[in-house]
Every structure is written in structure tokens, then in C-alpha cells.
């Protein structure tokens, strides 16, 4: 069965063999030369089983050695992941740094963090949204307290912004839609604050979620911001935090999570219940989506003449897989 059968008339000179078999001498056999599919499949399965058997034997041997050594065994090796291998970013914020603390304490969000204003969010879309985007906006409005959804009516954002400021709104959120699916978000902090433009992906509405709980109530949720470590990450984290009211109502047992991993921000909304001191049960409510920051502009929305604090330049910044910005 394991013989290589050559077709009549085919050149089997030394050079042809070496190019097809890889190593020229001694002549080795490769599984891909068997033309019969069933036989090839069987041979491949056998090869895999052989390999797996050897792997298990090696593992068993190592475990025995480790047990034999007992306390003197070397520590277990940690597998390398991209998060482990992350290139150290020099803009990582040091909690004791006074200059950064002063910068953050007096930036555009200081009015919110000093409890001078309460958040009020205006949610709108690009012109003429289709059903999915409309439902997404409605669900977002239930998740964010004091959020109002308005129909866009083709109005220019630069004209909407002064009117929002006059009516006391602190955020303008515009969900952009493409081919009936939401794909972008512009989040503009209102008095004169930064404007962030995100790419939105993986939007799951409430009815698409499995094992979800009942609709969210009107209680203010708690906010969890994970893994925003660099200076830019801090700014974005504060941008998200200022969307929600200062004091969460713990009675409602609702929590909104913004989890940053590899420059993607994952949004989840859960209701939790403590079964006892150590165990907690969670049910996911509400929409779920993923955000990726594309640009952060200083000042309110002005894409043509505004100054950008950070712009995603894909070919420069995405060249290294282990370097992240947020």
C-alpha cells in the first residue's frame, strides 16, 4: 500500500524526484503523492493518531518528572500571547504622575468629574436610517439614562451642535449606517469637548441575544472600564464614563462594561445578582457592540478644519502586531 505508483511515461529522473519529495537523499515519501483519496485519508488519520500518541507519551513523561522533582520542579512556563508580548507604551499613565493628573483634572471633562454637570445625551443617526439602526438607537437610549433619540432629517451636525449646547445636552452621539447596518459612531462631548469617531462592528440587538434577561429598567447602571492604560486610553475611558450619571443606583443591579482589548472596545450590558458572598449570577441584557477608535479630534465636530489629537494611520500603526494605542 505504501508504494509510490508512478504513471507510465512519466519522467522519474533524480531532479524531478527531489523537487517533489523535498529532501533529495535518502528518498522520502510524502502523503500527498498517493492519488487514491480514501487510501490517502486513511493514511493521514493513522499519521495523526501516531503523532498524538507520541505527544501524550511525552506529556506523561514530563508530568512524571515534575511529580518526581516535587518542590524543586521548575515553574510552569506561561504561554506567550499577544497581550503578554505587548510592546511597552511610553505613554502609559503612571497613577502618581502630577502633571498628567493636572492635565486630566483640567481637561474638557473636568466639568463632569467635578460634578458640575449631569450627562444628557442626544442620539441620532445618519440620514434616512433603516430598521436595524433605528432599533439599535432605541435600545441604546434605554441603556444610557437621560438619552433622547431624534430623527436626523438631513440636518448638518455643525448646525445641530449650537442648538444642543443651548438646550443643555452634554453629548451628541451619531450612529452612522451603511447598507442597513450601523457601522460608525461619532461621539461628541458638547460644550467644547473632544469628538471621537469609532468604527462599530458586531452589533447584536436584544432579540438576537441568547439567554437574555428582561428589558433594562430606568436605574442608572454602574460603569466598568477595563484596560484603558495609555494617555489616549484614559481620554477615551473618560469619554465613556461621562456618558453615565455620577451615582449608580445599586438597587437596579445593572452594569455597563467597556472592555478594551487589543484596541477594540467591547460594550456589554448585564444585570447581576449575588447568590452568596462568593457566587454571582449575570444575565446579559441590552445591545452588544464592538468599537474601534478611528480618530480623536480636539473641539466639537469639524472634520475638515478641526485639529486631530489622534488619527488612526493603519499602515504606520498596525504594522506591529504587538503594539496597541489605547
Amino acid at each position, binding site marked *: 500500500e505504501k508504494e509510490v505508483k508512478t504513471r507510465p511515461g512519466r519522467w522519474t529522473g533524480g531532479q524531478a524526484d527531489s523537487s517533489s519529495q523535498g529532501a533529495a537523499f535518502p528518498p522520502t515519501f510524502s502523503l500527498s503523492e498517493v492519488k487514491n483519496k480514501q487510501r490517502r485519508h486513511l493514511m493521514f488519520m493513522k499519521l495523526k493518531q501516531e503523532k498524538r500518541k507520541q505527544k501524550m507519551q511525552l506529556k506523561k513523561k514530563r508530568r512524571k518528572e515534575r511529580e518526581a522533582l516535587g518542590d524543586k520542579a521548575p515553574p510552569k512556563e506561561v504561554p506567550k500571547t499577544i497581550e503578554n508580548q505587548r510592546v511597552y507604551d*511610553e*505613554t502609559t499613565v503612571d497613577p502618581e*504622575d502630577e*502633571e*498628567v493628573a*493636572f*492635565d486630566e483634572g*483640567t481637561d474638557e471633562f473636568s466639568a463632569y468629574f467635578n460634578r458640575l454637570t449631569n450627562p444628557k445625551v442626544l442620539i441620532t443617526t445618519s440620514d434616512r436610517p433603516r430598521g436595524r439602526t433605528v432599533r439599535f438607537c432605541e435600545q441604546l437610549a434605554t441603556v444610557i439614562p437621560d438619552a433622547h433619540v431624534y430623527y436626523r432629517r438631513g440636518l448638518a451636525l455643525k448646525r445641530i451642535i449650537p442648538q444642543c449646547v443651548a438646550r443643555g445636552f452634554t453629548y451628541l452621539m451619531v450612529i452612522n449606517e451603511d447598507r442597513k447596518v450601523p457601522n460608525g459612531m461619532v461621539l461628541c462631548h458638547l460644550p467644547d469637548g473632544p469628538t471621537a469617531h469609532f468604527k462599530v462592528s458586531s452589533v447584536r440587538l436584544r432579540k438576537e441575544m441568547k439567554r437574555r434577561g428582561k428589558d433594562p429598567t430606568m436605574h442608572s447602571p454602574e460603569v466598568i472600564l477595563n484596560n484603558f492604560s495609555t*494617555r489616549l486610553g484614559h481620554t477615551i475611558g473618560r469619554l465613556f464614563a461621562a456618558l453615565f450619571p455620577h451615582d449608580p443606583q445599586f438597587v437596579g443591579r445593572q452594569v455597563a462594561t467597556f472592555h478594551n482589548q487589543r484596541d477594540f472596545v467591547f460594550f456589554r450590558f448585564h444585570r447581576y445578582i449575588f447568590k452568596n458572598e462568593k457566587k454571582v449570577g449575570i444575565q446579559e441584557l441590552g445591545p452588544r457592540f464592538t468599537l474601534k477608535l478611528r480618530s480623536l479630534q*480636539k473641539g466639537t465636530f469639524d472634520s*475638515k*478644519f*478641526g*485639529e*486631530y*489629537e*489622534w*488619527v488612526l*494611520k493603519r499602515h*504606520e*500603526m498596525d504594522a506591529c502586531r504587538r503594539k496597541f*494605542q489605547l
Partner: protein
Amino acid sequence: MADRSRLCSVWLGSETGILKGVSLSRKQAFNFCQVSSLSRDQEVRALCWADPAESELLVGSVNGTVKTFSTEKGLFTESRSCGDPAEDGAFTGLAVADGALVTCVESGKLRVWKEESSVHVLEVDAGKSVWRMRQSPEHRHRVATGGKENGLRIWDLQRPEQPVFAAKNVRNDFLDLRRPEWVRDMAFIPGSDKVVTCTGHHEVRVYDPASPQRRPVLEAQYGEVPLTALALVPGGTSVVVGNTHGQLALLDLRKGLVRGCLKGLSGGVRALQCHASRPVVASCGLDRFLRIHSLEDRTLLHKVYLKSRLNCLLLASRDLEEGEAAEEGEKKEVKEEEEEEDEVWDAMERVEERGEPKRKLTGEEEEEEEEEGVRRKSKKKRKKGQD
């Protein structure tokens, strides 16, 4: 404090009001600020050298004060209030002419202040909005101003009634609509009267007051977003411009073409300056980094993280790398000559790019050009030998 400030070869002003000095040889950054308190109204908007010996810096803040910082002592020595920020706006330019301080504010008022007086000696109205004022390095009493819907004007402080040169807007476009103008930065080209400006409508324009036409002599476009900063490469034939997206480009002023881009910035550029003798350009901006790029091969030489957004930048004329000793500089020159002989074939492309045989070498030949000329001749000889 004093020894730290003497090491610094790059000075930057930030939005938090801190004056930062960076020593590149030691790769360290130092903060110099007034001990009392930090506050946002101390935000530094303009920086300039107070004297040609570069021993004192003038720092203009948003609250209308101009502070003097001594690099020898490492302290702020004096502070004077020049104007009321509520009606004037922030500083857009600072200069020193014949011992008098010249300030320009956003509302268009160009004022000259004498020593220790809180009332200005001279006031010129330079338009409704001025975004930048720059002083000519050759004629210290000439300044240029420009702003939004306010074209380039060159003023002579000794004859302040009329501008020496007032630029005219370019012709209407193909729909016969007036082209908007917004001058954001300008520079005087040494060796002639010409002034190059960059605009918020992504144009770079060269004006020549010596010629009878008041419209730009050369116009070039770069990018799609406003150009915020401009720096002249010593030599006068190219400029480095930066825009709000953080793109830095090297443009040639002979034809108006983009020679190349400098990569690395991720935020809007606020200030650019080329070093007087070495072919490097320093840039700072909203992404809180100081970056030094080499102009010859457009690579990043140094990158320093300074924790606040940076508004303005000043380079000391002395060599950037060496803080104290001149011996290191000599060693570097010797190494460079040895490397040149090895890299003879690599030098081929460089000669064609610069087009040196076509250029007329002026009396101000720099050492580098001479070395390159020598290198070229030696390379040609070797080529013949190989044939």
C-alpha cells in the same frame, strides 16, 4: 535647576503652562514652571529668544503675561503683563526688535513695548484676525502677519502706517467664486525678500515683494486638511509643512512638488523648526511627543514623550546632540568621512535627487555641500578606473 537648563537644546511650551527643556544627548526632559501653581490660563502660546546669544527666553501665556526665563539660571526672572486677554485673545507671535518687545494678538493688534512699561509705545492694526506673526531674521524691524480672511502683510516697525507689502488674494476659481484665504504660518526666505506661507486650505504660497505682482509667485497644494505649521530648511529651497492630521511633508519651492513625507506623528502639528546647521527638523503637536526627524533620509532620530499637549517649540542654535563638549562633534565628523568612502555607490541616487550640478552654489556654501562635491569627484574618478 541651572545646570539642567544649560543642558537643554530644545525648549517647548505646553498647554498646561509648563516650559519644558529637552536634552537630547542625555535623553532627558525637564519641566520648568513657576512654583506657585499650575493653571490652564498659563498656557504657553508663543516662545522666542530674547537675545541673539540665546541666554533668555520669552514665554507668552494665554493670560496676557510675557515671562522671561533665563537658561543660565534656570528660573523665570521677570514677568510683564502685555494686554488684556479678554478683548485681545491670545498671543500669536512674539519678537524682539532693537531691545523692544513686539507682540501680536489674535484680534489683530500688533504692539511694541519698551522696557518695563505697561503701556505700549506703538500699536498697529493688522486686520481683524491674525493667526501668526513672524519676524524676519535679516531685517529685525520687519514682521509679517496673516490670519483668517486676512492676507499676508509685511510691516516695517519704523514706518507703521502702511504695510510694506500687502498680498492680494488669488484669482476667482472656475465658477467665479472668491477663493477663501486663511494664512496659518509664514517664513521669510533668507537671501531675498520672499515670504512663504501655508494656509488653512492646504496651500503653500510664495510671495515676492520685490516683484510688481501682489499675488503669489508660486502656489502648491498638499493634503486635504489645514496646514498648521511651516519651517524653512536652511538653504531656502524647501520647506517642511505639517497639517492637522499629523502629516509632515517636505516640499520643494522651486517647482512646488512634494519631495517626501516624514512619518510618525499621530496628532495635529502645532510647531515645526529646522535646525540652523544640522539637517534635522523638530516637530511637536497634540499627540504630546517631540519628534526629531532627519531631513536627508527622512527617518526619525529622536522621540520624546512629554506629558502635555505642546504648543510651541524653540531650537537652540548650538548642536543638538552635544550638550557640553565640542570633542564629540569632531569625532563624529571623522567617522562620517570614513563611512563616505565605503558607501560610494550608495551616494549615486542622492546626487541625482538634489540636482546639485544644476544649482548655482552661492557664497554661503555649507560644509556639507563641499564634502559632497568632493565625494562626487572622487566617485567619478573611481568609476573611470573600474571601466
